């Protein structure tokens, strides 16, 4: 008995010491933001006021993400000034919006752009216009402003209690498994240079310029995971990296992602992993595009009804800030909002559109911005990088907003934590809907493994929720012909969203926007120099 009492007392003392003398401190303050879902969901039961005013414009652009902004940019640059861009949110930019606090600007979504390949001509042209790409935009390897190139060190991976350099898990990985890494890297290196008889890349960005050779397109029918297994790739580290890549770019696990999409990630670029980034993520790109449109971007404007007439489109728009509706009659319409909204907005959606949308899934994302008193400590391994990835976590790790700042003094910082809810299906969104505090606690728990001091360092956590962040490239979504109805466009309507490509990438949205604008310009008889 005495022994038991003694043991009990001793273990209680040990537990007390382990827990620390202080109780768990309260969660740091912060906000929950995200797409204006209250407004967006009103599309399900439209109860908007009747339009009180009618305006006419040559081109109406619905949606101000990268697709819509790119379309507006191309129209404006071609001298077409009579257009209106209608954006539901208070600010245009879509996934590329940013927040800002007293410490730093920080991303709310997309936060980097890999150096675009030659095929992404419009994107390179934009970068040249913004002064970031210097010299010939069509050069094989153009020069970029080093302030926008991600500063060294770019990335590190937390695995087995140690921060290793780069993202391929190498610590304690046997030679045979590393040989698989090399085999895979050599294989995708070959894919990068592979061209079909028509001279098209096997995997091009924009994807529309890819080879249509059936032996490549067949990859769209299986998952990346099955492809890896079929090809004898069994190394857990290789599987982890490809899974990470799919979650990072598509919000989807490797076991759900089309093998074509998964290989596209590795094979469509030739920038050796270099990326462009800024404290505000990709918002500088969205703002650069928006500047070209001048005052023709109308925020807080929800298009709730579109009716196609013989030679014009009637858009009914709810102006949330004024709580009234207006009617906009446009000769040409560029639809740059997510495609899943089409059945809710169009008075008479075409059957081929509905067929194309059927089965489309969107990945929800959670983005947390943590304001820290100072950068977190590195206990073992490589020093803080821009991208800090956690191996044993469903989340993607965090990027450091102040990394690109020209400063050398230590000080407060903002880190942005990313989590694609890749395991959530459209019908199981309950975790997405959990409140700010539940997410803040989850973020802190995830980050406390590499950084036990994270709670003490954090002064606020702001959660940003994206319910429909990215269309998922599930097997069959890219090359089984479903996208056709949107790709070709119609007499008076063009589609300018990355959803049309099926991959939620900046370059795709930019390409779709510029393509839609150029087709619109052709219809209007306006001459232009193609950016594609």
């Amino acid at each position, binding site marked *: *008995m*005495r*022994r038991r009492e*003694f*043991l009990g007392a*001793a*273990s209680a*003392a*040990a537990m007390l*010491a*382990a827990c*620390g003398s202080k109780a768990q401190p309260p969660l740091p303050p912060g906000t929950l933001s995200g797409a204006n879902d209250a407004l967006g969901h009103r599309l399900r039961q439209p109860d908007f006021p009747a339009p009180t005013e009618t305006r006419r414009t040559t081109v109406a652009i619905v949606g101000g993400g990268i697709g819509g902004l790119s379309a507006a940019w191309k129209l404006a640059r071609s001298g077409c000034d009579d257009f209106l861009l209608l954006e539901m949110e208070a600010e245009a930019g879509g996934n590329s919006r940013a927040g800002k606090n007293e410490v730093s600007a920080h991303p709310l979504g997309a936060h980097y752009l890999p150096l675009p390949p030659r095929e992404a001509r419009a994107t390179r042209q934009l970068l040249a216009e913004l002064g970031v790409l210097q010299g010939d935009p069509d050069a094989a390897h153009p020069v970029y402003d*080093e*302030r926008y*190139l*991600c*500063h*060294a*060190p*770019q990335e590190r991976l937390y695995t087995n209690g140690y921060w290793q350099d780069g993202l391929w898990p190498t610590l304690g990985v046997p030679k045979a498994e590393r040989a698989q890494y090399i085999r895979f890297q050599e294989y995708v290196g070959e894919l990068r240079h592979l061209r079909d008889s028509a001279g098209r890349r096997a995997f091009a960005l924009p994807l529309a310029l890819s080879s249509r050779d059936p032996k490549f397109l067949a990859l769209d029918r299986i998952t990346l995971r099955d492809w890896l297994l079929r090809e004898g790739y069994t190394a857990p580290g290789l599987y982890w990296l490809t899974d990470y890549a799919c979650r990072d770019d598509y919000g989807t696990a490797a076991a759900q992602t089309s093998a074509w999409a998964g290989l596209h990630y590795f094979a469509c670029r030739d920038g050796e992993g*270099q990326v462009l980034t800024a404290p505000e993520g990709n918002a500088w790109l969205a703002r650069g595009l928006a500047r070209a449109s001048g005052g023709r971007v109308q925020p807080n404007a929800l298009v709730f009804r579109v009716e196609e007439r013989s030679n014009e489109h009637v858009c009914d728009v709810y102006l949330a800030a004024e709580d009234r509706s207006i009617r906009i009659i446009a000769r040409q319409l560029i639809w740059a909002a997510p495609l899943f909204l089409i059945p809710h907005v169009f008075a008479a959606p075409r059957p081929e559109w509905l067929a194309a949308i059927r089965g489309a899934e969107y990945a929800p994302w959670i983005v947390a911005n943590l304001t820290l008193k100072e950068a977190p400590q590195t206990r073992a391994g490589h*020093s803080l990088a821009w991208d800090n990835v956690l191996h044993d976590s469903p989340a993607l790790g965090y990027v450091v907003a102040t990394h690109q*700042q*020209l*400063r*050398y*003094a*230590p000080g407060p910082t903002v880190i942005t934590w990313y989590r694609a809810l890749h395991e959530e299906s459209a019908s199981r969104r309950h975790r997405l809907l959990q409140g700010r505090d539940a997410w803040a606690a989850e973020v802190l728990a995830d980050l406390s493994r590499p950084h036990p001091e994270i709670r003490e360092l954090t002064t606020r956590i702001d959660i940003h929720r994206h319910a429909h962040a990215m269309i998922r490239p599930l097997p069959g979504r890219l090359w089984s012909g479903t996208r056709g109805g949107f790709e070709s466009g119609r007499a008076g309507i063009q589609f300018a969203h990355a959803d049309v490509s099926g991959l939620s990438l900046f370059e795709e949205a930019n390409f779709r926007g510029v393509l839609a604008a150029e087709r619109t310009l052709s219809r209007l008889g306006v001459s232009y120099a193609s950016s594609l």
Partner: protein
Amino acid sequence: MQRGRSTNNDALMQRPLLVSVFIVASCGLAYELIAGALASYLLGDSVMQFSTVIGVYLFAMGIGSWLSKHVGGNLLVRFIQIELLVGLLGGLSAGLLFLLFTLHAGPFRFTLYGLVLLIGILVGLEIPLIMRILKREVAFKDLVAQVLTFDYVGALAVSVLFPLLLAPHLGLVRSALLFGLLNAAVAAWALWLFRAQIGPLVLLRTQCVAVIAFLALGFGFAGTFVSLAEANLYNEDIVHAETSPYQHIVITRWRDELRLYLNHNLQFSSRDEYRYHEALVHPGMAALPGARRVLVLGGGDGMAAREILKYPQVESITLVDLDPRMTQLFSQSPMLAELNRGALGSPKLKIINADALQWLEQTQEMFDFVVADFPDPSNYSLGKLYSTAFYRLLKQHVAETGLIVVQATSPMYARESFWTVVATLEAAGWQTTPYHALVPSFGEWGYILAGRRGYRPPAAIPVPTRFITPDALPALFHFPADMARIPAEPNRLDNQNLVRVFEREWGQVQTH
């Protein structure tokens, strides 16, 4: 069950001994952890240090257990003596090792493993002895169960307490002393409890009191002791030491020589800093008779400003140093202000405590001469101050005919690093003139002058100097074969190759 069999008498005997097993086991593990932590702290390579220390320690415990069969006589007396010895050795182990390391007084590793071996042997003796003492009272199966249980629980308690409470709050030296005191306390307690069996052993009592007093004294003065050891790390008298939000600032004096260390790196010695600062300032300033607006980046010690103020045409000096504590110290301490001849108090000088990069980004000011005197590029933050982006930014603030000078580490010890900085300036569009000077405290040191056009060395140095004189100038610009230019890549923000090259080169210097 056991309670039924126990008599009051064995309870009296057993309980304290079992409690002491708990304490003794705690102490045993603590010395092992402290030795491992200290070795990894001082020698690095923690995996190596911990595994060798633990290995030696466990092996030593084995020796102790084996030796225990030779221990005879009054076991209680032996136990008390061993406790006192463990307390003394273990308690002093961390302090002794720390002092030895900083004084370079003897073979550190030899002493480390020797101490670990000795403590291990003594600790190895403890448990067998206790078991032999208790075996008279308790059945063997209970004995083994009880003693080993307390042994392991004690080890657990310390392994949890050590990293969470002891090491962070008490430090290694004081933690060791605390456990030494615990061992001695067990001895004293046993002496008092078993006074009937042992008898009045005056010598043992005296030893007990002496050990406790000695360790307690050590515990009280451990703070002074650690700073004493740190003073020995610098081998000089520390006249000032503080930790600002940015760095650890230490100023030492040895006879009439003052030295400044930032984060343990020597910044200057008053014996030869004139060489460093004259070489930094005069080749540029003497070539710019029209220089009126001068910018000093870094250089919070005011020595570069002192040299610049010798030129009467200078109207203003802007000194941008991150750390306000540095500029306060070197303007307010009479001893230090004397070194820079009160330069920081000059009406021509304006001090700005800011991050040089951020300040340059927002200022509109233009300068005729800029001194970039930053710490060496030993990490990615500092590496930004040697990047093409930084030198391009600087260019926007330098007059058409102006010059900049950059301290650029040693072309001798870090040859590729030096020429990397040259290549970086050139990639940013500067015409460079590298040069070097011998500063005995540092060795052969490198500087780079850069302007929009070529630089011509001045015919005269119009101000009083001790080292940089016109006839000494030509030799500065000549690089002998062992320091001559080698190909190097510019240091861009997106590769920061300078940081890696610098780390490799200075790493090699330190291991030789």
